[in-house]
């Protein structure tokens, strides 16, 4: 086989995603059979699935604690950099309190995220991650809106 034809084949941009997908498949097939272990001492532990259902309306995100008074039990990598960790994770806005008294599924609703349960792991201990996540979304919207507004 002529190797020049192979090089020409992989030089087309529309071939590259296919090539990468095949490469990824190969790696992940190998990866699938590699024995690995699970470390029980996890940095951001989660409660077992379903363990909080119907016991707390904030399930599965009930971490305990009283806002600004009793800190919730949050495990972090560097506690010395987070002096007030766990203080605001149980904070609920008045509408969120009203809702959480009425439904046992409050923790899984969309209202629980903005203005409801403040996930401290997202907003305090790993705040830079959240900034970057929203930056990705913002940049993609900027590109889309520029392309949309300047279409011919």
């Amino acid at each position: 086989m002529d190797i020049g034809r192979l090089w020409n084949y992989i030089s087309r941009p529309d071939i590259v995603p296919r090539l990468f997908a095949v490469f990824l498949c190969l790696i992940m097939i190998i990866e699938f059979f590699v024995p690995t272990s699970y470390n029980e001492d996890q940095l951001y532990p989660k409660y077992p699935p379903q363990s909080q259902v119907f016991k707390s309306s904030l399930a599965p995100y009930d971490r305990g604690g009283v806002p600004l008074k009793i800190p919730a039990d949050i495990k972090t990598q560097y506690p010395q950099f987070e002096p007030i960790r766990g203080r605001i994770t149980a904070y609920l806005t008045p509408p969120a309190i009203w809702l959480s008294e009425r439904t046992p599924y409050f923790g899984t609703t969309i209202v629980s995220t903005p203005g409801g349960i403040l996930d401290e792991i997202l907003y305090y201990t790993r705040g830079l991650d959240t900034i970057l996540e929203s930056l990705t979304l913002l940049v993609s919207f900027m590109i889309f809106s520029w392309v949309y507004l300047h279409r011919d």
Partner: protein
Amino acid sequence: MFLNITSVAGEFYGYIPFGDIVLYVTEFSAISFVIALFFTLVVYFTKPEKQLESQIGGFDKLNYVSLEELKIRRLMAILCGICTAFAMLTGDLFNYALFLAVIGITNIGIVSAVKKEWVLNAAYYYGIIAMISTLPLFGGAALILAKTGTLSILELAGKHQDLLFQKMLYAAGMVGETGVAPFYAAKAEMFRAPGAPYILMIHLSSLLIVIRTAEILLTI
């Protein structure tokens, strides 16, 4: 043994804590940080190049970057430069993967304003690879978290665990996101767009990211 890191990156100078995400400065990352910021400034102050295309049997054609196009491309190039600079410093695997995702999308943004069909096609295919490669990238970080229980490079550096296959997956994500050799065609086509300093930022960010990923994978 807090933040006691010995790495290939040279001497450890200090750290900048953002909660659990601790940026750390070594000889290597300080140099790369300065380079990335310097080129960001170059991009900010430089006017884009003009290309003169010679035509057979006709008038030569001048390709230039219009003001509207310049603004969005310069913004994207500056975002890309800042993200590259801070990706050099970050001390957290997941945070680094997120920086890579932002750099990937700003790379598309730099060329997305160019109204040339082949450039936009190449950017589209590069975008597909960048999207696919988030799976191995974040998957690799998640597998490392599951196996070792931590994401901090500073913690992982002292542990000496067998992470070969997790690292392979992480590296595969980086390969897709930056477009290393066999998957380079889409990016090479993107470089053919006019507007020199902005296009160079794509190149510079990939180069620095490749070196930095090698450093991270050798350190943990």
